[in-house]
C-alpha cells in the first residue's frame, strides 16, 4: 500500500542535467512504465526512487513521507536490475533468500518462502545451482524471485527483459504481468521498448531529455499523443510525421507533394498519420499519390513504404495486396484519424 511521489526533482551528473523538474505521482498498486530512448533519464529517475542516486533538488516521498535521506536498504523496495545483479558466490536459493536473511527471518520460514518464490517463476529444480550454471532466462527469473520473496513497498524493474532473446522476452513479459497483478504492489518499470510499455502498464510516462513528455494510459498515449516525440516513439512502425506547409488558400504541400487535407491553421505544421489508418484507394478519393519505395510482407498484413521528400511514410495494407517497388499508388485517411502538431514546438494542435 504505497504511493510514490516525485516533486520537482532535478538530477545533475557534474554539469550535465539528466532529470529536469520532474514531478510524478504514482498511485498505490499502479504499474507505471517509464518509457524513453536511452539517456532520457528514466533509469536515473528509478535509481532515485530506489535510493541509489540522490536527487540534486526536489522531493521524493513514499506515502507522503519524504525519503530523500533514507538509504536504499531502509526504503523497503525491491529491484530487478538489467544485468540481474545476482550474487555469484551464492546458490540460487541463497540468492533468493538473501533479503530474508538480512532481515533475520528464521531459517525454516526462509526456506519455505524461498520455495514459494521459486515456484512462482518455475525455478524449483534449480535452487541448488550457482548463477553461472544458469541460462540468461533462468538468471532473470532468479532476480525476479529475489524481488518477490518479500513484499516490498515498491517493485522497481530496470529493463529486466532487455538481455533476453525475442521469444523468451514475450514469455517473461507475460510472467511479470501475471506476477504483479497477483501481488498487487506498486511497480515502476523502466524500458525503451514501447511494446513492453503498452502491454504491461496501467500508465506510461514517456520521457525525453530528462522531462516527462506525456503521462497516461497506454491507450491515451497511443491514440492521443501530446507531441511529435511521443507520436514518433509509440507504435510499430512509428507514426508517420510529415512537415506540411499550407498557404491559407486551400493548397497544402508536404515538400513538393500536394496533399488533399485541411490543416487547422496556415503556415508550417506537422501532420501525423498512423500506418494502419492509411489505406489504398482510387485517385479521386486520395489524399495523396506516391510511388512505392519498398513493399514488405508481414504475414497478417503488408507494409508499403513511400518516400515523401526526405521522409519515409509507411502504410499498412491487406495481407493479399501485392505491389512492386516503383508502382504508383493512392492513399487516403479518414480526417478524424489525422493528428496535427505545431511546426515549431512539436506540440499537438487541438
Amino acid at each position, binding site marked *: 500500500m504505497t504511493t510514490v511521489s516525485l516533486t520537482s526533482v532535478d538530477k545533475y551528473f557534474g554539469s550535465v542535467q539528466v532529470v529536469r523538474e520532474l514531478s510524478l505521482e504514482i498511485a498505490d498498486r499502479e504499474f507505471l512504465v517509464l518509457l524513453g530512448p536511452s539517456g532520457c533519464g528514466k533509469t536515473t529517475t528509478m535509481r532515485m526512487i530506489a535510493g541509489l542516486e540522490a536527487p540534486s533538488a526536489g522531493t521524493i516521498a513514499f506515502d507522503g513521507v519524504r525519503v530523500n535521506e533514507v538509504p536504499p536498504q531502509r526504503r523497503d523496495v525491491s529491484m530487478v536490475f538489467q544485468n540481474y*545483479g*545476482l*550474487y555469484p*558466490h551464492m546458490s540460487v536459493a541463497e540468492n533468493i533468500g538473501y533479503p530474508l536473511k538480512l532481515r533475520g527471518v528464521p531459517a525454516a520460514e526462509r526456506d519455505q518462502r524461498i520455495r514459494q518464490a521459486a515456484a512462482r517463476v518455475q525455478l524449483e529444480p534449480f535452487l541448488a545451482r550457482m548463477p*553461472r550454471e544458469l541460462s540468461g532466462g533462468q*538468471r532473470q527469473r532468479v532476480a525476479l524471485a529475489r524481488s518477490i520473496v518479500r513484499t516490498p513497498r515498491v517493485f522497481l524493474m530496470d529493463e529486466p527483459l532487455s538481455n533476453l532473446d525475442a521469444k523468451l522476452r514475450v514469455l517473461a513479459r507475460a510472467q511479470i504481468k501475471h506476477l504483479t497483478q497477483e501481488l498487487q504492489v506498486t511497480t515502476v518499470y523502466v524500458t525503451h521498448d514501447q511494446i513492453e510499455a503498452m502491454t504491461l502498464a496501467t500508465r506510461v510516462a514517456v520521457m525525453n531529455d530528462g522531462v516527462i513528455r506525456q503521462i497516461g494510459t497506454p491507450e491515451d498515449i497511443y491514440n492521443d499523443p501530446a507531441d511529435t516525440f511521443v507520436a514518433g516513439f509509440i507504435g510499430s512502425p512509428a507514426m508517420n510525421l510529415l512537415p506540411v506547409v499550407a498557404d491559407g488558400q486551400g493548397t497544402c504541400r508536404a515538400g513538393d507533394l500536394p496533399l488533399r487535407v485541411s490543416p487547422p491553421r496556415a503556415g508550417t505544421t506537422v501532420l501525423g498519420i498512423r500506418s494502419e489508418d492509411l489505406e489504398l484507394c482510387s485517385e479521386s478519393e486520395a489524399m495523396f499519390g506516391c510511388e512505392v519505395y519498398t513493399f514488405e510482407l508481414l504475414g497478417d498484413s503488408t507494409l508499403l513504404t513511400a518516400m515523401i521528400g526526405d521522409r519515409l511514410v509507411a502504410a499498412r495494407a491487406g495481407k493479399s495486396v501485392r505491389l512492386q517497388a516503383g508502382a504508383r499508388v493512392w492513399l487516403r485517411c479518414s480526417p478524424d484519424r489525422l493528428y496535427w502538431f505545431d511546426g515549431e514546438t512539436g506540440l499537438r494542435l487541438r
Partner: protein
Amino acid sequence: MSRPQSVSNPIQGRAATTLRRGPGEGMQPARSPAPGYRPPLAERVALALRQSLILAGLASIVLPIVWMAITAFKLPRDVYSLDAALVFTPTLDNFRTVFAHPWNLGNKIANSILVAAGTVVVAVPMATLAAYAFSRFDFRFRQTIFLLVIASQFIPAAVVVLPYFLMFRDLGLLDTRTALVLINLSIVLPYAVWMIKGFIDAVPIEIEESAMIDGAGRFRVLAGIVVPAALPGIITAAVFSFTLTWNEFLFALILGKQDALTLPLGIVGFRTERGDLWELMAAGGLIITAPMFMLSLMVHRQFIGSLTAGSVR
C-alpha cells in the same frame, strides 16, 4: 580410432607447427599432408632455435633449484666432488644439523612464520578496506593518494633502512618480531591495496546495489558480497604478502640481532670462518622454499577461474 597410432602422431605434430604460421600458408599440409612431407629448412631451423632458447631460459631457472635440492641431501665430502654430482648416498644429516645448536633453525622458522602470518593478518583486512575505498568512493585527491601509496614502493629500501633503525631503537623495538611486522606492513600494504583494488574494480557494481536494496548496509555489502566475490584476488594478495615477508632480508638483517632472526638470516649464518657450508645452506634453502612452493601450488589449483562468472548477464 581407426587410424594406426604410428601414422596419426607425426600428423598431429606437424599440424601443431603449421597452425602457428601465417594465415593461408598452412592450409593444405594441416589437412592431409603428402606422405613424407617436411617443412622447409628455414622453418625447422627457426623452430629448433626457438626451442633451445626456451630450454636455456628454463634451465637457468630450474637448475639452481635442482642443485640445491640435491645438495641438501649430500654429505659434506660429496658437495664438491664431481664423481658424486648425481650419484651419492643420500643423508638427512644436514637437516638434523641445522635444527641443532648452534644453528637453531627451528627458532628462525617460528620467527618467520609469526612475522609473515602477523603481517598478512593485519595487511589483508587493511588493504581490503583501503582498496574498496579507492575503488568505490569518490573523494578528493583519490587518484593522487592512490599514486602516492604505490609510489612509496619506489623508494629504495637502503635509503630508509637507517631512519627505521633509529626509529625502532627509540621505540625500544629493535630485535623484536613486532618491529618486523610493522616494517613488512609498510612494504606489503601498497602492493596488497593495488592488487585487491584491481579485483574489486572487476566486481560488478550492480551486485552491491542489489545487496543494498535487499537490505544490506555498507559494511554488510563489503563483508558479505564484495569480499566473497573478490576472494580469489584477496587470497592471491595474501599469498603474495606472505611470500614477500617470508623472503624479506634487508630489514630483518638490520633490525634483528638474536631473538627476532628470520629464516633468510639463518641461511647467511652458514657462511662461517670455516668457509661456506653449502650442504647446510641447501638444506636451509629447501626449508625456506618448500612451503612457499606448496602454498602457491595449492592456491593456484584452487582459485583459478573467476568466481564472478554468472552474476551479471
